[in-house]
């Protein structure tokens, strides 16, 4: 009997591992920046390039940093989620227009609505590299000390917002 059971058990264990492997998304690369200080940046504002915005100004606040672009399809699905969140005034959202033409970025916000307190433009993607961005949209939750606490790769959905981001925001704001 044993000679039949043992191979079957081995097979089942292997099958379970392979099945779990099938469900993993290889495009979600865990960020090594979680719980690390957010890389500092100073970038020109999207609407007024003569003015700069520095991430240092955000010390003492919990905020969301969202990388988006007018050429990014998934950003369109994410956009209404941020519009609704901006109306609730829970957490400020700052946008980085990533590798985009300034006028396209401005037009995108004009046509679809602007959920951001402020947007900056990262035209050559250097700040993106600092943040480990490899595809927009990507969203970072940064705490009062300027430490990255969460990274969302791909579009933020209502579900992710309610289940992951907002509870964490409340927790970090209470600190």
């Amino acid at each position, binding site marked *: 009997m044993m000679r039949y059971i043992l191979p079957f058990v081995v097979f089942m264990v292997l099958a379970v591992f392979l099945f779990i492997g099938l469900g993993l998304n290889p495009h979600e690369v865990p960020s090594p920046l979680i719980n690390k200080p957010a890389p500092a940046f100073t970038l020109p504002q999207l609407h007024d390039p003569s003015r700069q915005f520095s991430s240092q100004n955000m010390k003492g606040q919990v905020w969301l940093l969202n990388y988006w672009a007018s050429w990014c399809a998934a950003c369109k699905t994410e956009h209404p989620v941020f519009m609704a969140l901006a109306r609730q005034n829970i957490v400020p959202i700052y946008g980085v227009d990533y590798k985009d033409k300034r006028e396209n970025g401005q037009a995108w916000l004009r046509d679809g609505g602007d959920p951001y307190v402020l947007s900056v433009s990262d035209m050559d993607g*250097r700040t993106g590299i600092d943040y480990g961005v490899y595809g927009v949209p990507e969203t970072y939750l940064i705490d009062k000390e300027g430490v990255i606490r969460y990274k969302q790769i791909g579009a933020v959905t209502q579900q992710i917002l309610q289940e992951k981001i907002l509870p964490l925001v409340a927790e970090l704001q209470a600190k």
Partner: protein
Amino acid sequence: MKNLLILLFCLLPGFSYAGEAIDMADDPVLEKRMIGLAENLRCLVCQNESLASSRSELAEDLRREVREQMQKGLTDQEIIDYLVSRYGDFVLFDPPVKSYTLLLWYGPFALLLAGLAGLVFQLSKRNNKVSEARLSAEDEQRAAAMLNPPEDSPKD
């Protein structure tokens, strides 16, 4: 009308777009060093392509970044450390030995050892089972007769 159409079709190839030429450093030695380094780094957009061969925009940006860091005089290891600190070990095609990659690195050897141990165990068990059979004197004679047939036996 027909001529106009023909003319229009003649113009069509003009629309084809070959993409921008990929920028190169002026210094061929540096470019070679950059490509050598980038061949061992993964492009995060097209994940099974190296940073050296990928044509994705992110790969081009990262090559520029590597080039600039080399110009600043950073060593290869420092540049790799920088990219790993941003994108994680995933950018390396050669995963480093760490607590959570032990199974990856040493798992095959553990399996090999387990297989060898199983084989030795099975063989020793089989060895114990085989008992030497004793022949009776009569059987021994018969066997000898069969093995050493008389010289004058007919041959076919």
